């Protein structure tokens, strides 16, 4: 697992020739890494054309005897060679550039490592070069647009909230379709990424195809992200302090705000006059864009301090981080504290051991509400009453309202506009002030976590190592939600406190025996291992109600505990695995692996699953016929086949994971209760239909690919094509209700994802002081449901009240939008009162009679689109001029659609005012009969183009020259400026805040949005200091 570039030092055997040492002098200097400014020990220095050489010491310093005109070559693994001609000076300091394209680069592949050039699967390695300078709260947020085929969408707008990650599309229907995340060999859930500091990350390996993922067997089906954290390096202890601070703002959408006056002008233009209601609204003198209230912006700052170093025997790394992200939404706030300690020591000649412990704590205050609910409020309503608005309050009903109180629509009822005893009502809801809903609630999520591991590694004979690693991960999550006296229209009656605690204790023991040996032309790299894992959950929650004030917001002030609840459950996994990588003559590559997993939640007959894979590669460029080719310097053709599994089903919804998930093969009974007279009696209720045959979801993936380098790597890249067919999907299958149940967990259905990925890297300019590299990444994925058993054609919705439909139909993408097709809008003359509400549009449209039978019914519904993009791309440019550098990343997504139900709220399709008179439409001959008039939400009217192009990241940096840094006793000093989402373009017809912000609904009803959470635009300045 652990590897170190810099301890692979091979010392040159030096022969001492006597040279004509004319004017020989002593040259000395220091070699540092250009990337981080740290000294590089063990660099080989050779006088070209001789065998005279030396190497740098722990501090990167060297001395060598040479004469003017000699050429010194500095070389070191994973750095580009540099040659310098000896001149007048006796001091030659060198800064080595890291060679990112080196094919000898080591890639972590799960229970081992492999040389990049020998990879046969689709694996992308991403090093943390400047990722830690991207000002985001979560590690995964920084990966957007970095890896082909990996889609990361900020589905929730709050700081610290998990994005949705999909590697090569959605392969599961009810199961979790997110990738497996492994940190330093410890399997964690992706939620964990909120508690990791990017400054601690050395690199990511993304295992995309099944042959690569198969070593994780049961859990590899949706891809694997392996994160390696930084280790200490041999040499003087390096201290680093990295910090950034900046400002975030949320991007607003002008299309969803209508000022009172602008609306009045439109009304006057259309009708020649304005209504009493409109006149009254103008009188209030308020023009509140509610976006200004809830999208407030904030600061983001991070402070990260680390010390890394060690001796030849023992290395250590210690780091501390504090991050504060105020988010862009009202009340939204995220604070995180992390610490990580790693130690690694060679105890004996053949024995190495190490340990790490990483406690972390975060507190997230959420925006407890939904943007649509607030943005639907009319612009005439203020947040608080002012001197003007207070005059209009209906004092008969609200005698006590004062300036500064939350304004409520009903306050403005019964206004005598013309002083004639008449009453004008403009309120459309009895709800409380929308701002109060958010401000008077306090909802938090606290996560405490200790991730730890200890390992021992014993070298039995050369190349053969036995390794044992014990992992323990304790995670505690506490959630609370306070709803205060002013938070609801029901006042004190609705005061409520919900508290929950969840702990998860994860322990795992991994043992591996690995063999790495090169014998002649045979390069063998094999591992065999066993692993046992246990997950134990403990959950508790309580609800207190009947608070009479906001003073004490804990359970002890509640007048009644209305709910008390606790559960515990456990799951276990037992695995054995084997993998052999073989390379012959650096040309022919073969990798085979297999894993057998047993999972406690599966039925007795299907507890175990076996997941094999095989992949082959041919390094064509190492063949003699390409050896001296001027164009192609590197070419590898590869192909893989692999079977992976998925056990991450999650049935039910609610605050906690449903415990049926842990024991679905048995019939379970849970407590129930009934009221007889004044007492409550307890019973037991059957909870599920047992499935003793329940077993693994399976994915079979075929992935041919090619890696290439042209013109000495001036152009390099890779292309992959894949088909991933997932069957035996773990599906909560709908069953007839007459059985007493709605669903049963079964292995059913088949879904296919196919597509391609392209990564293209070019070195446009490659000069000593001017480099410009471009990376282009593109991918396409198509999703198709191949089989859905009895559920084929299943139609479902997200919200009863707005029952827009999704269909899961074989031959189409899963979760396709379903409904009628808009034929034409309805003219205002048929609308009850089109100007009644500021910003209102018609509730209905006229739809198309697709089957031409003169009647609109279910048979005229069709598939209206799907939430998956056809094409996703990014272009990154890295430019270095002297000590300045700049990187720019554009990213885009095209072809996805989103069902933005927000339109119904924002454009006020509510109430009678926006309803069309369908009878009049028939009478006027506009439509044949009234069935042609349908609510917009059931049509493609609210299916919008979710395509976007974003300037994701701009980073401008300056590395102070070593001499300058040294005068400050620093080894490194960098300042930079970054921006995220400085530009963000989305489609004209899109009327929400963020086309990526999709509600977290089930995979069969995906793509639902209610306006969404705003896109964050961030500008930060940062400093990296090394000493």
């Amino acid at each position, binding site marked *: 697992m652990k590897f170190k570039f810099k301890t692979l030092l091979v010392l040159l055997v030096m022969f001492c020739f006597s040279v004509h040492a004319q004017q020989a002098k002593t040259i000395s200097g220091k070699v540092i890494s250009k990337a981080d400014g740290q000294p590089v020990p063990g660099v080989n220095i050779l006088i070209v054309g001789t065998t005279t050489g030396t190497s740098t010491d722990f501090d990167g310093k060297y001395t060598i005897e040479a004469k003017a005109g000699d050429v010194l070559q500095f070389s070191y693994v994973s750095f580009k060679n540099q040659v310098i001609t000896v001149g007048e000076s006796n001091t030659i300091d060198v800064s080595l550039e890291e060679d990112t394209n080196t094919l000898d680069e080591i890639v972590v592949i799960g229970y081992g490592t492999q040389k990049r050039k020998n990879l046969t699967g689709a694996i992308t390695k991403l090093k943390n070069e400047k990722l830690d300078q991207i000002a985001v709260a979560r590690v995964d947020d920084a990966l957007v647009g970095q890896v082909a085929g990996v889609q990361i969408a900020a589905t929730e707008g709050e700081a610290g909230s998990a994005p949705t990650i999909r590697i090569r599309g959605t392969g599961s229907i009810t199961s979790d379709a997110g990738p497996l995340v492994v940190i330093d060999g410890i399997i964690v859930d992706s939620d964990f990424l909120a508690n990791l500091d990017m400054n601690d990350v050395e690199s990511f390996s993304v295992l995309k195809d099944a042959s690569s993922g198969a070593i994780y067997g049961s859990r590899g089906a949706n891809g694997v992200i392996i994160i390696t954290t930084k280790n200490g390096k041999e040499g003087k202890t390096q201290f680093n302090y990295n910090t950034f601070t900046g400002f975030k703002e949320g991007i607003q959408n002008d299309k969803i705000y209508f000022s009172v006056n602008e609306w009045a002008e439109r009304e006057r233009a259309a009708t020649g006059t304005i209504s009493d209601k409109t006149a009254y609204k103008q009188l209030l003198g308020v023009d509140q864009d509610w976006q200004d209230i809830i999208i407030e912006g904030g600061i983001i700052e991070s402070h990260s301090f680390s010390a890394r170093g060690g001796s030849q025997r023992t290395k250590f790394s210690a780091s501390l981080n504090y991050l504060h992200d105020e988010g862009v939404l009202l009340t939204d706030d995220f604070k995180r504290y992390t610490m990580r300690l790693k130690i690694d020591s060679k105890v004996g000649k053949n024995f190495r051991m190490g340990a790490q412990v990483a406690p972390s704590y975060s507190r997230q205050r959420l925006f407890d509400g939904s943007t649509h609910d607030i943005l639907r409020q009319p612009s005439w309503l203020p947040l608080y009453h002012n001197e003007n608005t207070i005059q209009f309050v209906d004092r008969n009903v609200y005698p006590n309202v004062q300036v500064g109180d939350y304004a409520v629509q009903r306050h403005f009822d019964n206004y005598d506009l013309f002083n004639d005893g008449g009453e004008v009502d403009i309120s459309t809801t009895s709800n409380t002030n929308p701002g109060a809903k958010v401000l008077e609630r306090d909802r938090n999520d606290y996560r405490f976590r200790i991730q730890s591991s200890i390992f021992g590694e014993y070298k039995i004979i050369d190349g053969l190592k036995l390794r044992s690693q014990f992992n323990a991960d304790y995670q505690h999550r506490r959630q609370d939600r306070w709803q205060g006296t002013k938070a609801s229209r029901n006042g004190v009656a609705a005061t409520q406190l919900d508290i929950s605690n969840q702990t998860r204790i994860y322990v795992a023991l991994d043992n591996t025996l690995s063999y790495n040996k090169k014998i002649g032309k045979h390069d063998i790299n094999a591992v065999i291992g066993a692993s046992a894992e246990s997950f134990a959950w403990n959950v508790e929650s309580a609800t207190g109600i009947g608070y009479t004030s906001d003073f004490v917001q804990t359970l002890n002030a509640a007048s009644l505990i209305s709910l008390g609840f606790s559960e515990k459950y456990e799951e276990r996994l037992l695995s054995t695995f084997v993998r052999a990588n073989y390379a012959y003559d650096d040309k022919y590559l073969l990798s085979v692996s297999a894993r057998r997993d047993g999972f406690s939640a599966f039925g007795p007959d299907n507890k175990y699953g076996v997941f094999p894979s095989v992949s082959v590669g041919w390094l064509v460029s190492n063949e003699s016929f390409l050896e001296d080719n001027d164009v192609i310097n590197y070419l590898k053709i590869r192909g893989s086949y692999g079977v992976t599994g998925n056990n991450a089903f999650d049935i039910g919804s609610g605050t906690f994971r449903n415990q049926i998930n842990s024991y679905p093969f048995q019939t379970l009974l849970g407590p129930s209760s009934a*009221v007889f007279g004044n007492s409550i009696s307890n019973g037991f209720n059957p909870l599920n239909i047992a499935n003793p045959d329940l077993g693994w979801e399976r994915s079979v993936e075929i992935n041919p690919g090619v890696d290439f380098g042209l013109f000495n790597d001036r152009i390099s890249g890779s292309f992959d094509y894949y088909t991933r067919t997932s069957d035996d999907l773990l599906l909560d299958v709908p069953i007839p209700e007459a059985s007493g149940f709605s669903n049963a967990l079964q292995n059913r259905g088949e879904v296919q994802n196919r597509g391609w990925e392209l990564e293209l890297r070019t070195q446009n300019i490659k000069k000593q002081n001017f480099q410009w590299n471009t990376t282009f990444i593109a991918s396409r994925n198509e999703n198709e449901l191949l089989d859905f058993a009895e559920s084929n054609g299943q139609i479902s919705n997200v919200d009863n009240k707005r029952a827009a439909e999704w269909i899961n139909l074989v031959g189409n993408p899963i979760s396709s939008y379903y409904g009628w097709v808009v034929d034409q809008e309805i003219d205002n003359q048929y609308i009850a009162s089109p100007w009644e509400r500021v910003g209102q549009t018609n509730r209905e449209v006229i739809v198309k009679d697709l089957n031409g039978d003169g009647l609109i019914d279910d048979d005229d519904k069709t598939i209206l689109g799907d939430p998956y993009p056809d094409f996703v791309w990014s272009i990154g440019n890295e430019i270095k001029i002297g000590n300045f550098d700049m990187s720019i990343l554009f990213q885009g997504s095209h072809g996805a659609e989103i069902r933005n139900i927000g339109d119904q709220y924002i454009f006020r399709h509510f109430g009678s005012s926006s309803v069309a008179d369908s009878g009049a439409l028939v009478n006027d001959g506009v439509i044949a009969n009234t069935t042609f008039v349908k609510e917009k939400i059931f049509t493609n009217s609210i299916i919008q183009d979710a395509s976007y192009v974003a300037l994701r990241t701009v980073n401008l940096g300056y590395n102070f020259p070593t001499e300058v840094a040294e005068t400050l006793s620093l080894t490194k000093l960098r300042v930079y400026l970054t921006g995220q989402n400085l530009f963000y373009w989305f489609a004209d017809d899109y009327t929400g805040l963020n086309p990526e912000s999709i509600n977290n609904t089930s995979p069969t009803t995906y793509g639902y949005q209610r306006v969404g959470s705003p896109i964050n635009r961030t500008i930060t300045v940062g400093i990296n200091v090394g000493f």
Partner: protein
Amino acid sequence: MKNLKYIKFMVLALVLSSCEDFLEPSPTSVISSEDFYQNEQQLIEGVINMYDGLQGVNDTRNDTNHATQIEFYVTEMRSDNTRTKSGEGEAAQFDDFAIQTTNSFVADYYRSFFNVIFRANTVLANLDVASDANRDNIEAEAKFVRAHAYFNMVRLYGDLPLIDRLVTAADGTDVFYDRRPISEIYGLIESDLMSAVDNLDNSGSRNRASKAAAQALLAKVYLTQNTNYLEAQLLLEDVMSSGYMLEPNFSDVFFNEANSEVIFAIGYTSGIATDSQNFSAEWLNGVGRTVGVNYATQDAVMALTANVDDSRPAVSFRADPLQPSQNQVTKYLPDGADGGDDGKTFAFDARLAGNDWIVLRYADVLLMHVEAIIAGGQDTSAPAAVNSFQLVRDRAGLTDAVTTPITKDDLLAERRVELAFENQRLFDLIRFNKAQEVLSAFASQNGTNFSTTDLLLPIPQREVGLSGGLLQQNPGY
């Protein structure tokens, strides 16, 4: 030495790997069914579970069973008695006789009551663990609950799958899609209720099955089928001599729980999420998430207020304090509290209300008694019938002697006022063969369309879809 230590470590892992039990952790906060229904106590816990099913879950999710708590949507709101306040959303489909096959309340009710039937069948399948002394009683209780569920279902959906036992995987799923004629369903209901009448007594809680409840229900079953009027009359007269009586004060029927008028009610208790109900709050304005449903129609208001001396309208509805032109039902005000001046200010969480839902009460029995004596005819002047009718009227403050003969229309009108907003109206209209006439007129008044096929709900689209053509939709959908 180190070698040895290391090998020990490895061996430890191998031991773990070979330990088969490792993959079989036992559930700790649920029970595996293999361990359950082993003794009478556990069977009784199954009996209690049936009532838990009838209660329904007090939440706002759309995948949980709300059972009795949403019954008003599929009964009262489909009659001329109630409607939604705003005409918005899925609930308004009931107002307009324009119910979609995907309507989630229709699906919820179907799901909930088949789940109740499953719970009852579970008890019946495990009767062998009961003691001889209690077996018949437990069986009767389960059959009463099953009959209650099927009776509601058959009146709402028509032909239904007949599930009278626990169906195992080996039986296949066809039985769940096989709609048996209503006569077969009524056959099961009647035999279940007869068994309940024979084996229950009236000593227990009014929130549980009793002999009187079974008798009254069976009488209603007979009346609904227009058969066995004499049996119905005798059953009702038996109930009338079982110690039940009208509450002198009409309001106490609803706000003095388990009073002597109540024969069977679904029990709820206040303030506890798992055992309270939400409909009391939903019927008000601005209390909780769902608001303004089951509002009294103008038609109902007029019918109820026809007689100024009648004390019942004042208990039954009121003008919405926030929107005085609208009328809200007040028979089930959350725990009796009226919500203050604005009708929505409570000292406690009104969404966790404890009002029991009355299924059968003595006034209903008295009026059914009149109905049984009319026995399918047009009217009656029989003294027994007049006496029962007079009792109900007297309690309402209408002490004038009942005009004879009592016609079917008189009886229907009386039932409407007495049992307003108690989910009786739609079934009464159908039973009195007045639904077509009354609801057509009501619909045209409101600019909606009523047709006879609207008297049955659709079978939830989900079921029709799942059945692959086996399960036929009701006509008109």
